[in-house]
């Protein structure tokens, strides 16, 4: 890329950066312009990626170049056409099949992911030793806190109640205490995550400001 286009580029991006930052002074036309440009380029870029990274290499080229080897691709092609048929309102119903397909895949992924990606490792990860002999008192206490936190935060979400039999009432009282404790742990989590996010976001801001402070003078030289 030539220097000139780079130079223009830096100025354009500086201008856009300032336009976005002008939002801090209030919602204004400059900001909204920048924001709409952004949405436009985002959609456009996504279309390009969808075509060049997915449709062309995975559907169009294989079907054009070696249709016999890739005959199975006819299925997604059909489904894709059905999906596109939604563009015509009276054909909307036709889109049900591809959507059903997508949903089936998605639900299975979510379900499997929840079982093996969240549930299993998190439960396993929580089965920690609270025996000081294993790692010293510090670790033992920490692990105990962690286990109690996990269990009580999980209990916090309890949805269904019981009748007001004696057992039910006892259970309700117990649950209430548990849930209160869970809430505390959740609040600690909130505070900690909030704070650690501050760090990341401030870095972003500093980065943008540094860009303005350092890059622009460079181009002027």
């Amino acid at each position, binding site marked *: 890329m030539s220097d000139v286009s780079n130079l223009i580029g830096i100025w354009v991006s500086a201008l856009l950066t300032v336009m976005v930052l002008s939002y801090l002074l209030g919602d204004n036309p400059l900001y909204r312009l920048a924001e709409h440009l952004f949405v436009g380029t985002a959609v456009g870029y996504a279309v390009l990626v969808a075509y060049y990274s997915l449709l062309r290499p995975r559907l169009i080229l294989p079907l054009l170049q070696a249709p016999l080897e890739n005959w199975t691709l006819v299925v997604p092609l059909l489904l894709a056409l059905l*999906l596109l048929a939604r563009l015509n309102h009276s054909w909307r119903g036709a889109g049900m099949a591809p959507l059903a397909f997508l949903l089936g895949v998605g639900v299975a992924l979510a379900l499997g992911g929840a079982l093996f990606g969240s549930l299993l490792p998190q439960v396993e990860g929580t089965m920690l030793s609270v025996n000081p002999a294993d790692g010293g008192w510090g670790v033992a206490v920490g692990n105990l806190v962690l286990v109690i936190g996990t269990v009580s935060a999980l209990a916090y979400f309890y949805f269904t109640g019981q009748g007001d039999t004696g057992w039910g009432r006892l259970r309700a009282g117990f649950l209430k205490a548990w849930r209160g404790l869970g809430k505390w742990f959740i609040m600690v989590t909130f505070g900690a995550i909030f704070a650690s996010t501050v760090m990341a976001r401030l870095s972003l801001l500093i980065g943008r400001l540094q860009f303005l402070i350092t890059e622009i003078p460079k181009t002027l030289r």
Partner: protein
Amino acid sequence: MKVKFGRSLAIAITIGTGLLVLANFFVRNEFLRRVQQTLLDWALILAAVALLLGAVNVVATHLRKIRGRRPGWVYSLFLLAALGTVVLLGFLDPRGVASPAVSWVFLYVHVPLQATIFALTAFFIASAAYRAFRVRSVDSFIMLVAGIIVLLGQVPLGQAIWDRIAAAKDWILAYPSTGGARGIILGVALGTILTGLRVLLGIDRPHVK
């Protein structure tokens, strides 16, 4: 009748593909794996097609706005112009996304815009902090303490104030905070499992008319 058939077919498709994909989580089997791979590839293709549909929707929405001269329609013009430019540049050059023109737009328009808009969160986080940490109850007091310790524990300044603060921060992040987060994650996993099962059992069918 036709509609009914369509419905049953759709539900059957969902359950069928769902079970095929799900089976892979439970069995390591080469055939199943390849079936799943194929299904996933198809799903990717369909998702890409859906994106095209979505782009059409975006364009239509903004065209409507422009035609109706609804407030802000001028901005919609710019949005469409930006979208059109990027797409056009990409399709004019066989290199597509990698073409110099698209790269230039990406590098000097898209990236700075995205980075800066996202950087606004720094300010938003400031005003959120102003509100979120008010001590209204024991709960919020706990949140406040945890928040401030972690906040200061991350930077040199905090260590200048109290040299153990980094250790305190690490402890909070390692134990109580992780505990709370795990509880939430496990809960979400439970919810996800039941939601998924309801769909796979045909109880919930958000996609069927």
